[in-house]
């Protein structure tokens, strides 16, 4: 379960579990998280939690709500986000699968949600809207999700959270230099994951950048590319520093930029 850690000037005051669909923050006593400070509005902000995601919304407070130093109106909370309300800070710790399990396996499995409709469009913006949302517990059907662990640590979560698709940046930058023909001396940096070479309709090859390095593959044409004097087949061929490629009558050198 996700939680908030409330602190003032570096000293922790308490932890707040986000165990309700809607947790309100404000100066008035009816709030789930009451902060008695004049810089805090009566009804300052709220956090709506739907399954694994928590959404923070400022409820039109006088002095505003900051996340990681930036004022926000609505914000989807990420692990370790710091919410600032007046002089108070609330650190958001997302839900983490227990260490030792294979989190990605179950975590990423497609599951179906059944009616009643979840997250009705207006419920989030409506301060009275908490009841408009169905309880997340009842809407998931098989396969059942493993019981959500409640203990967590920052790094464990960071490892389990699905990273966005990443380009193969850990590979050294490489380039092609033309050795013969009218373009002699020209250099082409391989900045994309795929770079095509040759003449469309005549002969084309592609150089792919992968985590393991660079590969050349024949794409079209009756003639296959030649690397260091050897004609390739239709399989991808790994490229090494200073390999010489012949393609559509042009020689070129592949090299790594250091």
């Amino acid at each position, binding site marked *: 379960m996700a939680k908030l850690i409330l602190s003032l000037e570096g000293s922790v005051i308490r932890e707040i579990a986000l165990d309700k669909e809607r947790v309100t923050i404000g100066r008035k006593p009816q709030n789930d998280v009451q902060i008695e400070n004049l810089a805090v509005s009566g009804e300052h902000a709220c956090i709506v939690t739907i*399954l694994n995601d928590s959404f923070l919304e400022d409820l039109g407070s006088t002095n505003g709500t900051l996340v990681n130093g930036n004022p926000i109106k609505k914000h989807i909370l990420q692990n370790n986000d710091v919410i600032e309300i007046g002089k108070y800070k609330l650190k958001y710790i997302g839900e983490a699968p227990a260490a030792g399990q294979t989190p990605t396996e179950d975590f990423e499995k*497609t599951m*179906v949600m059944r009616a009643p409709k979840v997250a*009705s469009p207006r419920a*989030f913006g409506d301060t009275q809207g908490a009841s408009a949302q169905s309880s997340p517990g009842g809407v998931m059907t098989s396969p059942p999700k493993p019981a959500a662990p409640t203990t967590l640590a920052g790094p464990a979560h960071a490892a389990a959270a699905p990273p966005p*698709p990443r380009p193969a940046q850990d590979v050294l930058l490489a380039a092609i230099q033309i050795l013969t023909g009218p373009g002699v001396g020209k250099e082409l940096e391989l900045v994309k*994951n795929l770079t095509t070479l040759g003449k*469309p309709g005549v002969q084309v090859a592609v150089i*792919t950048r992968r985590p393991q390095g660079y590969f050349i593959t024949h*794409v079209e044409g009756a003639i296959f590319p030649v690397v260091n004097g050897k004609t390739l087949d239709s399989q991808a061929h790994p490229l090494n520093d200073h390999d010489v490629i012949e393609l559509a009558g042009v020689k070129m050198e592949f090299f790594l930029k250091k």
Partner: protein
Amino acid sequence: MLNLSSALEVATATHPGMVRSHNEDSIAADSEIGLAVLADGMGGYNAGEVASGIAVELIRTEVKKALVDRKPQDMNGTSVETLLAEHAERANAAIYQAAQSQPQYSGMGTTLVVAMWHDNKMSVGHIGDSRLYRLRGGTFEQVTRDHSLLQEQIDSGMITREQARHSQNKNLVTRAVGIDPTVEAEVHTYGVEQGDIYLLCSDGLSDMVSDEDIQLTLTSLHANLPLAAQQLVQQANDNGGRDNVSVILVRVARYYPAHTSWFEKLKSWFG
């Protein structure tokens, strides 16, 4: 029945990915009748494979049967949409019954995306978060709109597309085949242009490879469709391959009108 195999070029690839032990995706493509079906199964043990397998096999064989005695002229957007919706419904009933009668299949289900090319058009039906994209000229677009919690959150303005990339709720679909006694496929028909490339894929591709990289791959490798399909799967795996990944690519090599006057015939020959 019109044979579309000279008008449509088709390539497919499917892979379990780098994490999963087995492949719960099922795919089928038939360029003769202009049909492509992709399903991403879910459920314990091997139930996911069973569900997606039933959906794809039933739709492939039954749609083909239904087409045999149909004249190409009778195929229009509405009749094809009905055909696809009916067969999605039949697949739903078959999976639902199997899940009810056999305890090991209890709760199994599958997403579905099915596309059919007919009379210079394409009809697509889908349920869940398997997608159809189109590359036309320099524009790469997602044609289907996911039936997922995330899409609902985007539609309601709760989160932006950029935030959606980091959401933890990527895997929750709001509609699936075989879970309830009935299901409604969302079906639409679009005009086709020569040179269009259509991509049907499971979320194992769209979650792992950005739209920009998919577009770059299709643009660079359109002359070699099988290589493009392999390349897409490889990119998903290079980026972590956390799910099964399946792709079907269909390129419209030439027009395929149902009403062939001598002039249109001539035009399509030279098209």
